[in-house]
């Protein structure tokens, strides 16, 4: 009996210790996240002003604002979505609603998973060789958007598939039994029900398009461009590339430090707003 009790109390001790260690390690990660964000905000807050987000860089990018970079990132977000959202949603609808050949579905899914795993810099090489050189688009908004669009396809497909999967099968059966075709069922019943989930995926993919650097380095981004882009064949500045350039290149790294922090805050804010919108949509959707 004594032995059993000792063993039990030993176990409780190990349980307490292990739980404490696990909780502590989890707290370390979150602490690091908070420290990182707080540090960047503390150092960059003074750089933020209306001029900072509405004006062009001046004086070899050591003063002035980052408006061209914000604009460029917005262009890339819109351009990449114009491609990846329709194709991604259609692919997901096909896989989830139409496809009957299970082997084919498996192969396409495998392709999607592998595309999602391709390193971002390899997407950059792909965009450079296919869009910039082979199609001769040059380093341009078009080439960058196509590259980012390809990168974002798996994100849209996965989230749309997830959203379609949650729509109860009874909805479809009820619609089909009333004589609706499959397309009518999808368009009038399934898609409206899945819409919040699909929107969540779109928000996440927009956030990703805003933050990616490696894919646009050789396909779209300009170190500095004095003029605003006149067409989709022009190169542009972009927020993430601007941070990289200010922090690593040139002779004014120290002078432009506040601008680097400020640009980082603007980029983080953009990405977080998109992600929060996505999370809130999903949350409201789940509650319904």
């Amino acid at each position, binding site marked *: 009996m004594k032995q059993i009790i000792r063993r039990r109390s030993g176990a409780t001790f190990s349980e307490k210790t292990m739980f404490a260690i696990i909780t502590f390690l989890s707290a370390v990660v979150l602490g690091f996240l908070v420290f990182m964000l707080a540090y960047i905000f503390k150092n960059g807050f003074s750089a933020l002003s209306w001029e900072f987000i509405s004006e062009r860089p001046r004086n070899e990018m050591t003063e002035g604002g980052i408006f061209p970079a914000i604009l460029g990132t917005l262009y890339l977000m819109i351009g990449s979505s114009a491609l990846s959202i329709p194709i991604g949603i259609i692919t997901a609808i096909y896989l989830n609603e139409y496809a009957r050949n299970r082997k084919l579905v498996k192969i396409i899914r495998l392709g999607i998973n592998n595309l999602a795993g391709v390193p971002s810099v390899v997407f950059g090489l792909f965009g450079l060789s296919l869009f910039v050189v082979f199609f001769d688009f040059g380093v341009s908004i078009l080439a960058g958007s196509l590259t980012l669009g*390809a990168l974002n396809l798996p994100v849209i497909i996965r989230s749309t598939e997830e959203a379609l999967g949650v729509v109860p099968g009874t909805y479809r059966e009820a619609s089909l039994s009333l004589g609706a075709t499959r397309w009518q069922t999808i368009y009038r019943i399934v898609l409206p029900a899945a819409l919040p989930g699909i929107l969540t995926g779109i928000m996440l993919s927009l956030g990703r398009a805003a933050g990616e650097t490696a894919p646009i380095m050789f396909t779209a981004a300009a170190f500095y461009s004095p003029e605003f882009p006149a067409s989709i064949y022009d190169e542009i500045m972009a927020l993430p590339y601007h941070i990289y350039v200010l922090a690593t290149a040139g002779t004014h790294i120290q002078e432009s430090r506040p601008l680097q922090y400020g640009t980082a805050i603007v980029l983080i804010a953009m990405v977080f707003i998109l992600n929060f919108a996505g999370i809130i949509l999903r949350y409201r959707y789940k509650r319904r």
Partner: protein
Amino acid sequence: MKIHRNILFDLFIEKIFFLVGFTCLLVLLLIMLFLFKEGLPIFSNVSPREFIMGTSWYPTSENARYGVFPLIMASVSVTLLASMIAVPLSLSIAIYLSEIARPVIREIVKPAVELIASIPSVIIGFFGMVVIAPLLQTYFHLDTGLNLFNASLMLAFMAIPTIASISEDAISSVPVSLKEASYALGANRWQTILHVIVPASLSGIWTAIILGVSRVIGETMVVLMVSGGATTLPDSLFSPVRPLTSNIAAEMGETPVGGEHYHALFAIGIILFIITFGFNLIADYLSNRYKFKTD
């Protein structure tokens, strides 16, 4: 006749969607095609053995040398160290979220972990450069804080949300009946976690680790900004190194299209593509092989 038209339209849509459904495979195929088209020409001047095992990378010198072995070793060492940091932390978070945390705290911690995944890599690289590097330099009396250790630390932070959230899904999907059986035999919560829950979700955890590691190998901006950039073989924890991804990003901008150096950088892209492709196939196999049958 209207019904007939609707059915025809439905078939038409199905065919169109069928074709669009192949876009992903097409993109994947084009990536492979163009990587090989632009990468393989280097092997007419440099043998594959020389390329992979060669220890000097001097692409711009008169007598150019294209040996990527130091770059491969840099990628391997950074990835190993980052995994050693990320895996225990990620599993802790997964276990904490699924077994320990109270619901209220869980609702805060889970989105926070997801938030880490959404931070652009250039921001994490920037933080490693301006905050962690000076700290390392001061405390360890180093020549530079931009090194293997710093890069691994930042990469580990980036890999944590991937590994943690997939592991947590696996752990949460362990049937309650298994846990109850364990408790009924007198095991406490920790014993149940260690001997029942973790073994039962091991294939999911492995999938998570492989996907996380694959992400670390392919990550570019962080290593470009904090790994130091030296193309020599790493000889200590604090050596400046230059992993494969950062080498492409650092040099592609200044390389004339179609030259030898250009082809060599694409050949590095082929190596990266093959490695991550392999990791993804393994992850796919693992996650399909073993799913919980709840009946």
